[in-house]
């Protein structure tokens, strides 16, 4: 059985994709830029950061492009004043929710949050900062998790569970009190499931996860080729 090819428009341009593909996939294949933070190629989509929201003709609501499947005849808008306003608000809320100090961060200059703020033209944060008192866990021999810089995208949780198969990371609490935890909320260094592979460190879009010994602007995240790793795993090689 062949997969049906569906035709739709993105920002007025006619494009086509396979049934089962998401708006985000088809948009990227056709060179449209839709900002993302929680989405990462090779991991299941969480649809939680809401940055990839797009407008679909005939629907008053916005739809997350990373988990919305394409449909025949769909008319998608990826950028508008309204979308830009929401995307800016999301980034500004992320900055105000925790203690992000780019100037002294290990990933200054190569951080996805910092880059998105610049791309979206954010030059200040409209919301008052919450300045929560959050821990830094440096108990692991090679890595550190600094919750002050965490945006709760859960890429670390998903890469650990889905690719490494260890499921060391998870999330405790709810809402603004949510926090990434190792095992049953033990210090990372005491985790009995962590293999020390470092995948979580390299998928983290901010400086929340980093290698020990790295100072300001010294931590570079490496692309891990997750779709490739996933394909190998699925083949059972």
């Amino acid at each position, binding site marked *: 059985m062949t997969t049906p090819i569906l035709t739709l428009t993105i920002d007025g341009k006619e494009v086509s994709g396979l049934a089962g593909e998401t708006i985000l996939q088809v948009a990227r294949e056709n060179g449209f830029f839709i900002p993302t933070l929680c989405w990462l190629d090779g991991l299941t989509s969480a649809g939680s950061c809401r940055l990839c929201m797009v407008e679909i003709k005939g629907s008053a609501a916005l739809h997350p492009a990373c988990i919305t499947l394409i449909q025949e005849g769909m008319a998608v808008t990826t950028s508008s004043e309204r979308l830009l306003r929401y995307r800016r608000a999301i980034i500004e809320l992320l900055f105000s929710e925790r*203690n992000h100090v*780019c*100037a*002294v961060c290990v990933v200054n200059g190569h951080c996805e949050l*910092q880059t998105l703020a610049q791309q979206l033209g954010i*030059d200040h944060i409209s919301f008052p*900062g919450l300045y929560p008192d959050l821990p830094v866990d440096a108990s692991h021999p090679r890595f550190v998790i600094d919750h002050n810089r965490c945006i709760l995208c859960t890429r670390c949780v998903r890469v650990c569970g889905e690719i490494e198969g260890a499921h060391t990371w998870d999330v405790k609490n709810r809402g603004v009190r949510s926090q990434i935890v190792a095992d049953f909320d033990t210090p990372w260094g005491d985790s009995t499931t962590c293999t020390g592979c470092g995948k979580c460190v390299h998928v983290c879009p901010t400086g929340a996860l980093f290698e020990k010994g790295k100072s300001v602007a010294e931590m570079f995240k490496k692309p891990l080729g997750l779709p490739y790793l996933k394909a190998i795993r699925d083949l059972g090689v």
Partner: protein
Amino acid sequence: MMEKLRLATLWFDGCSGCHMSLLDTDERLLELTAFLDIVYSPLVDVKEFPDKVDITCVEGAISSPEDERMLVRVRNSSRLLVALGDCAVTGNIPAMRNIEGAPAMLRSIYTSGNGLQPQIPALDLPALNDKALPLHRFVPVDLFIPGCPPGADTLFTALTALIHGNTGHIALPTCFGA
């Protein structure tokens, strides 16, 4: 010849790095001063903030009642107020104390070690506000220039745009932390 614009710069809770960036425009300072008179600044010897200023660039976060008083005074006397650098724009490094507040920060720095006669300095120093906050928490700001510090090129571009009356969106090659 067109009358020169009156420029002021201030230094609140910051490291002076943004002022160093201004000096880093090097010989382009002469191009700027062809259009600007520096009427108040840590870089010139004027004690009182003047009444009528066209552009005031403020470096640093607002950290004390004295900063707050001065900021309001400056806003009332300035046509355009520019938040210069991350401390003025976001609070940046001074705002790292906001997690625990000023008293806890002072105790941790001055009395938690094994120093000789540990004490928190207070004589002739302004009391600190509990939080270091960005300018726009107190007064309206006309232009935000993020960066720690914003580069000399960024400042030159911004000031040149303001000199030419461009107060709308000015595209600047800078970001938080840059």
